[in-house]
């Protein structure tokens, strides 16, 4: 059969014979370098097979000329990061807490590391940002049971609270006055009403506050003070303010006096390195500004 070339009238070019809805494709040849570029990319991909890991084998794979692996690259990056952090940690190790706080550069590093360490270790109890919850103190407010200075916070983190394996741990005991028979149930009620009057909470008008005062001075004042202002050496909270670790409703207060409270915090000295504890101290201090 003879070849029949269809020619486009306007351009005089032959068509490829392809037609869509009456529109015919002209055969305008592409330059050869174009198709050669395509062949070049195929050659390039063969180069890839040789240089990089490419083909899966039965129990392994072709590793390529330089043994590249993205996992090794990650490991290298992590090692570099660790080295970099090590250099920064050296700066934090030498400086005192106050010096770190005064230096914008050091405190930036300390706060960033402290925030990360806080998220890993402290958030389960104290909440994100030190929000706290019932029984776990809020770290973003201005009430500090054991003191809110940098040194106090560092001491607390290092040795914990009522953490008996650590002999430097902070010890303070809210006894179970009811359970141990020191106070009768109605006496507990009376003391609770008296404490409520100290904190300017609503008080049962029938309550015998004079009796409550007497009971308070006998049983509670040794730790909480005559005026109920608390004592940080023993972790005895201020009973006249608005911050209530276990709540300020009557059942919670009754429960506290009757059964006592022995909330504990682990010592972190052996578990976290000193630089991390320093960073944590500064971070916790920054949450509420310490005291």
């Amino acid at each position: 059969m003879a070849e029949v070339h269809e020619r486009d009238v306007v351009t005089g070019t032959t068509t490829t014979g392809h037609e869509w809805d009456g529109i015919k494709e002209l055969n305008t040849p592409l330059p050869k370098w174009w198709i050669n570029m395509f062949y070049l990319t195929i050659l390039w991909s063969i180069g890839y097979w040789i240089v990089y890991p490419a083909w899966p084998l039965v129990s392994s794979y072709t590793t390529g000329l330089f043994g590249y692996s993205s996992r090794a690259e990650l490991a290298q990056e992590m090692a570099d990061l660790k080295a970099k952090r090590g250099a920064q940690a050296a700066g934090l190790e030498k400086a005192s807490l106050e010096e770190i706080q005064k230096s914008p550069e050091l405190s930036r590093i300390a706060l960033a590391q402290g925030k990360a360490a806080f998220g890993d270790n402290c958030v389960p109890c104290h909440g994100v940002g030190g929000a706290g919850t019932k029984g776990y103190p809020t770290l973003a407010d201005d009430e500090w049971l054991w003191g809110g200075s940098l040194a106090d916070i560092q001491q607390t983190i290092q040795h914990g609270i009522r953490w008996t394996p650590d002999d430097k741990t902070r010890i303070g005991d809210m006894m179970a006055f009811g359970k141990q028979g020191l106070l009768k149930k109605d006496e507990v009620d009376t003391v609770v009403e008296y404490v409520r009057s100290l904190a300017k909470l609503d008080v049962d008008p029938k309550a015998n506050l004079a009796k409550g005062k007497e009971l308070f001075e006998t049983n509670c004042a040794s730790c909480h003070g005559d005026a109920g202002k608390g004592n940080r050496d023993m972790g005895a909270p201020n009973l006249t303010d608005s911050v209530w670790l276990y709540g300020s409703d009557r059942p919670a207060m009754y429960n506290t006096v009757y059964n006592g409270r022995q909330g504990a915090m682990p010592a972190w000295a052996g578990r976290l390195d000193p630089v991390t504890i320093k960073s944590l101290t500064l971070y916790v201090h920054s949450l509420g500004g310490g005291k």
Partner: protein
Amino acid sequence: MSNAPHPVEEETYIEGPLYASAKRIYPQRVQGPFRQIKWAILAVCLIIYYFLPFVRWDRGPNLPNQAVLLDLEKRRFYFFFIEIWPQEVYYFTGLLIIAAIVLFLMNSIGGRIWCGYLCPQTVWTDLFMAVERHIEGDRRDRIKLDAGPWTTNKIAKKTIKHFLWIMIAWWTGGAWVLYFSDAPTLVHDLLLFRAPMTAYLWIGILTFTTYMLAGHMREQVCLYMCPWPRIQAALTDEDALNVTYRYDRGEPRMSVKDARKAEASGQPAGDCVECLQCVHVCPTGVDIREGLQMGCIQCGLCIDACDNVMAKLDRPKGLIGYDTDEAVKLRIKGGTPVYHILRARTYIYLAIIGLVGGAMIYQLATRQMSGVAAIHDRSPLFVTLADGSIRNAYTLRLINKRPEARDFAVTVEGLLDAQVEIVGVPKTADWRPVVEVGPDQTREVRLLVSAPKASLTGKSVPITIRASDLFAGEKVQVQDNFFGP
């Protein structure tokens, strides 16, 4: 094969190959006003490109003194008296809009001015062609040289040409990296082989691309790689001046001798003598006499070539010139063409350029040299303090764009009896915390705002956090909320 008769359309076959070798183009030397304009633009563009990084601009002790610098590491862009921070990159949007509209404007007035005179591909190709002409001679010599055997002379010429091309390409890549670092220092480091690897890599890449694109690819870039010719084709209209062969004057083509004969016998005679000078000087190898076409970058060199021939023949110049197709058609009909260089389109483009440019200048002139941003703590939203008041905490970022350290006093408005504290910074006599922010830096601090419960009019109170420069008096502010129970 079936014996059944086929309709003809179904039996079409492709004639010729699907891929063809690119036609080799040997542009001829030409002289004239358009060539002069192109040389001048080439010189100005290349001098700016190669030497701008070395221009110094004093910005004070804490900032680089390079007039144009893209500091990627510190994320600052310096352009003479302007310093751009990353959050101000939207200025580039304005520049891009202006650039696009300027291209449209050029197109609506004089066709592909960009392609013919300003495009880097055109400028560098022109430079490479000039080198080539200098070493290998003009069009005829080059055709002969390429067709001839590989003699010592040919090898020497080719070697010198490619060496010079690579040198220019290398300098082009070298100049590029100077925009990203202090130029004199980098040049010194590059020479001593202690510059960062990235610098050598980019010089290598740009040396390769310049050498390939300007030396070997040339018009192939315009014909196959660049989208702009297609876009330009869509942008042109019947009123835009384009490089045009005035076929009303040129046709029918004939030699000078034939023209005399034709005139004597009263036959029509065109001015085009078919000397092909317009085709020979064309850097993309098109024939302008075929009319406006994609391959024509409208550099005007054919105008120079044709004018030179017309001058020799004592015929008026301008057989090829900037004109419109409409005008040519009108002259054939015996009319006098009217040109609309300034028309609604050009006015609209000018208005947009003015508007965007004005807005940018206004923004730049009135922009704050400091800034403040606040993020409210997500947890806890608020805390109750021992005295029963409520406290909210914010992460505050203060921005100082000036080259000297500044003190900012932070205040909060919209909350009665609010107390403001920033951890670790001193306070003024009137109890405003003062944050020092270093030169050309930002500083993040923790802002604690507390207020008596009675000050809270709702669960959330809108507040304004304001930072005031203690000495210059500049004030910046940000809106946020104060939450309570």
